[in-house]
């Protein structure tokens, strides 16, 4: 256990696995490209060697050499670019290591200073907390990058925060932005970018046997039917869908049915059956619903989700966002039986909560005294569904004293409370209950022995 109870350095590595996994996967992919590039060049070298031997005249040889020079120049240029990509990715890993080293140094110096004065301790403690504040901001950036699907990339809140905090090397934002772009285009009903990406990553998709290719081709086919471009629809069906007939028979069957029913006629039929609304027609309308579902916009959402799942997995990005995982764990480990959580399901807009917070009355109440994150106005709805923490021992205060109303406080703080709030009214012998505002005599205090 380190200062302030944070995890060890090695445990932090575990927590940040993905921040090393993501650049690693990118370096690996880059390596595979280099591998292809190299293999092509090796083949070419062999060919050139052969044709050099074969060629008799100087002209012939010069021609081969010229060819070689062109090929080498292009090879050099490509390899240099790939190497630059790799260097950049490695430098990201190095930055992440330096960030962790910072924590290591802080913890070391904190342990040295522990025995020293209180004031220096405060500052070191704040420095360690600052490191965790930075981590929190990184988690927020990661979350915002993924969830802020604004069409204009520059408007992405996560990207803005990333730039203003200058942490470009600590987050693989470029990799997330690519998936946002593709996901956005899918949601707008445009499959071009998705298909291009699938072509680039054919071998990976084949390896994991995903449903993505079939679903994308099916969607392409549906789009063509929607546009009533029957000729291309049939050719797409033959070229891309037919091969799935063994594994996806049901869906293929419905898809082929679309050649007869166009979207409009399906809608009409469905409406007709709805009006009749008889039990007998249930089967019929169910069948028609299968067809009409294919034209629904939800398919874009489904496809985008499917794509993101695969993209994240391929890149080593966790599918549950770490920010949400920490929120869930953090609230549970902080939540006590005394926390006031709201069961309301209505989610108020930010401005409303902010105004409520700004105008909260300045009267002492248990909530305003405790400043507990779990029962705070902005968190208490989220806390409602999460479990309580478990405690094996009591966490109280020194010198507990009880007032006649049964409320128990820290004696020193209770004595100074009244004087702090109403210095003119309260003399040495009077007390104010901070919760109920009742006034008591100092000799009514009872010393308690809770443990």
């Amino acid at each position, binding site marked *: 256990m380190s200062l302030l109870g944070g995890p060890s350095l090695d445990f932090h590595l575990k927590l940040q696995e993905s921040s090393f996994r993501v650049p690693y996967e990118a370096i690996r992919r880059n390596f595979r490209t*280099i591998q292809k590039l190299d293999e092509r060049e090796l083949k070419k070298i062999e060919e050139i060697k052969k044709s050099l031997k074969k060629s008799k005249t100087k002209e012939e040889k010069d021609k081969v050499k010229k060819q070689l020079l062109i090929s080498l120049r292009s090879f050099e240029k490509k390899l240099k670019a790939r190497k630059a990509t790799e260097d950049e990715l490695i430098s990201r890993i190095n930055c992440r290591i330096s960030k962790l080293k910072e924590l290591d140094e802080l913890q070391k110096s904190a342990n040295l200073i522990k025995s020293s004065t209180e004031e220096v301790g405060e500052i070191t403690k704040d420095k360690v907390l600052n490191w965790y504040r930075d981590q929190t901001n990184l988690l927020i950036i990661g979350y915002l990058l993924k969830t802020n699907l604004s069409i204009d990339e520059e408007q992405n809140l996560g990207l803005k925060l990333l730039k203003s905090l200058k942490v470009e090397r600590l987050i693989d934002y470029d990799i997330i932005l690519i998936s946002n772009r593709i996901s956005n285009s899918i949601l707008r009903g445009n499959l071009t970018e998705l298909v291009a990406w699938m072509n680039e990553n054919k071998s990976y998709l084949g390896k994991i046997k995903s449903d993505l290719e079939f679903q994308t081709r099916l969607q392409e086919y549906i789009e063509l039917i929607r546009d009533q471009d029957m000729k291309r629809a049939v050719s797409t069906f033959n070229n891309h869908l037919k091969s799935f007939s063994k594994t996806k028979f049901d869906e293929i069957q419905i898809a082929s049915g679309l050649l007869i029913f166009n979207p409009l006629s399906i809608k009409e039929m469905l409406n007709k059956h709805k009006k009749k609304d008889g039990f007998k027609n249930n089967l019929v309308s169910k069948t028609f619903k299968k067809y009409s579902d294919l034209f629904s916009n939800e398919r874009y959402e489904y496809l985008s989700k499917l794509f993101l799942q695969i993209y994240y997995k391929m890149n080593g990005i966790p599918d*549950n966002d770490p920010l949400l995982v920490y929120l869930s*764990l953090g609230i549970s*480990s902080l939540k006590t039986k005394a926390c006031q959580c709201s069961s309301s399901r209505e989610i108020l807009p930010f401005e409303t909560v902010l105004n409520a917070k700004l105008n909260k009355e300045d009267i002492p109440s248990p909530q305003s005294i405790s400043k507990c994150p779990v029962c705070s106005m902005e968190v208490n709805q*989220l806390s409602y569904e999460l479990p309580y923490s478990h405690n094996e021992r009591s966490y109280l205060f020194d010198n507990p004293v009880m007032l006649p109303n049964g409320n128990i406080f820290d004696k020193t703080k*209770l004595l100074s409370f009244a004087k702090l709030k109403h210095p003119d009214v309260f003399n040495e012998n009077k007390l104010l209950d901070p919760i109920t505002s009742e006034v008591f005599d100092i000799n009514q205090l009872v010393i308690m022995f*809770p443990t």
Partner: protein
Amino acid sequence: MSHNQFDVLVEEVNKLNELNYIQTLTDTRALIESLEDDQENDDDLDQLLTNLSQSITKDLKQNNTKLNKFNKNFLLKIDLDLNDYYRYPIPSKNLKLVQNIINFHLLRIGDLNKFDNKLGNQLYEMKSLKDSIDYNHDLNPIINWYYNNDYKDKDEERDLLFEFKLHRLNYLKLMNQNKIKQGLNYSRIWFPLIIKKNQDYLFEISKLMGQFIISNNEENNVSNLDLDFKELSILFVKKFCQRINIEYESFLFLIIFAGICSFPTFNKFLQLKNSNSFQWSSLKELPFETPLPLFLKQYHPIFICPVSKEEINDENPGMSLPCHHIISKSSLLKLSKNGLTNFKCVYCSTSCSLSDCKIVKFYFI
């Protein structure tokens, strides 16, 4: 403290850093230059081509090995599936709440979203005042703020300690800059005001003035104020937040920090229980204690009944016995057989009856 995994990481990354594809690039360049010169004989050319082939193969093999080792020796060893820890998922209907919490945090950290409202403006002011300490070591804006702020009157008892630290540092800064006369003038204006409020500061202040007289060695004093400025910067932010009645720390930060701190305990538990066999996701209370730094345990008092070991709550409150020991209501009912009999306190054997006991509640101030 040894960091096995961390050391492995550093070692493996150093290997990754080493001269990647350098041999291939060098040999390619050599070949290009030789072709450009057009001076080589056929054997030379053949040799250069062979060299390049060998370098390409060697570089590829080397890099492949390095990457495999990085994965095997480091990545696979720190493998941790976050999904295993997401037993209480945040329902998607609540993601808007998460966005609200993030917005509050963004407001707290300053310049990004300048929300046009009172709090936004106040926090903006706080940030610029803090900047004046952090970057310019200039305390005058803060002194101005301290005495002229709208919220001054609310702050009934002036924070004398804060005031003293502020003037002490400003005085030391002048002395450090060798502005002795100004410094002494400054001390004559402010320090008597503080002593007048609380004579306890007389000792501190005379110590401070004495230091100046005794140590005339300037170098000794100079450069030691960095820590003081940092401390004051923290104190100032705390003071500012207290005055505008908002929390010093962002709640989101505190929650995330608590999540990070408790993570190793969840990890240990998962390894013990072999995760799937034990469904802690169905429980209303975590099945184990997650140790947190003490300052995260200061929001609500927690009382564990010494008899039943249960945490008291509204349904099962703490009860004070006549001897001023405390047990939970359910334990009290059990011991007194629903109030039918007297019983002895588990601590001191005082004889108690249900009617002598009363409900208590703990509060932090």
